[in-house]
């Protein structure tokens, strides 16, 4: 039960979505890391379900499908539905 981010093999910079070269050091190689939770910074409901932005401790901000009753600033657990990150409030 986690989402995935990409981390530069050389300098450790974390990115999401994935890049081709590390924006910090230019390295072309990354490894995937699981990330289990993050902070739900914002959310909005366009009518088809709540969409949120979650900042994970490694730095990147993920756009997520939000399940549950969200509150801004709360720690949410992360999952994926295929490639789509999911946050459970």
């Amino acid at each position, binding site marked *: 039960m986690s989402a995935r981010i990409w981390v530069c093999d050389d300098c450790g910079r974390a*990115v999401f*979505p994935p890049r081709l070269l590390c*924006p910090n050091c230019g390295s072309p190689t990354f490894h995937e890391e699981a990330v289990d939770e993050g902070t739900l*910074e*914002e*959310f*909005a*409901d*366009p*009518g*088809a*379900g709540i*969409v*949120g*932005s979650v900042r994970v401790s490694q*730095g*990147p*901000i993920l*756009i*997520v*499908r939000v399940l549950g009753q969200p509150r801004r600033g709360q720690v949410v657990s992360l999952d994926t*539905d*295929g*490639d*789509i*990150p999911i946050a459970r409030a």
Partner: protein
Amino acid sequence: MSEAVIVGAGQVPYSRHPPEGTTTEAVLTAALLRALETAGVRIAEVDGLGVASFTLLPDRAIDFAWKLGVRPRWLMDDSNGGASGLQMLQHAKRALEAGDASTIVLVAGDHFTRETFKALIEGYNRATERFLRGIPHGGANVLFAMLTRQQMEAHGLERRDYGRIAVAQRRWAMMNPNAAFRVPLTLEEYLGSPSVAEPLHRFDCVPVVTGADALVLRAEGNGVRVRALRALHNHDGHEGSGLRTGISVIASDLWDAAAAGPGDMDVISVYDDYPAMVLAQLDELGFVGEEGPREFLRRLDEERLPVNTSGGQLSVGQAGVTGGTLGLVEAFMQLTGRAEARQIERARMAVVTNYGMVLYRYGACASAAVLEVSA
């Protein structure tokens, strides 16, 4: 050393419900012909062509040149959406000054069907296809709803503050025969309009329309010159909050290069996909001073500041890529005395911004130009 001049501009009225049988290539052609007419230039004289359009595909600039009977020595396809106007201007100006072409026409426009618009939104780029489409996000509105809320929190703003932008721009649009929305808009109507994604409601979001813009440029002549143009794309690696655009990085260099400042601008065209981004760019350009955003927005409305005097995308509409050219065409019209009922007295200088290309969470492109009448 020659200096490029915008000698003509044309615009097809933007329409929510274009006639049956409308095509992208027809609206682009119509805008091009209007621009040539204002410039007093014949199609046979055109030896440079730049085209920006989401919906001209599978045709490209070369197809358009072929079908127009144009034989360009300089040719450009631009695919940068709302940043395409200044992108093409940046390249066209250099081409003319280097002698690569003598008469360049830049065209931008789109005509969507429900299907082609949906396809554009859902297949905008790989990041969208892979990580946004299935959420479902339904387009950029939800992203900018979140951004707007962050901006409201940061500056203590309320919906009624942003309403000033929508209401003020509608006031200008009422004097623009090319605008899709020309009925008065009150703050009450703005506040009470249907919700799109809180805090954004109907009048915070640009209407999708069919339309096209065109500009004619030459290496000399009367019209509008570019005092300075700066661009910075992907300024923060898409690792920021989105509340600061690339304009924040280029603004001081832009003003230095232009040997002018915000106070010298008679006309201000900022890319208005959402009121929050209008505010962000105006602040980054230096128009919001000590007074702070709430008071600035009050003055924008009540003092009728010359911001988005066409009515902006919020009232004229967004014909796909035309977000990048709408403000540029308006600046040309104002600076050459062609703005009719909207005319700003003694308009001599304008600043125009472009923004756009929402790669994942916010726009990655940003550029700005300072223009001056050249006669």
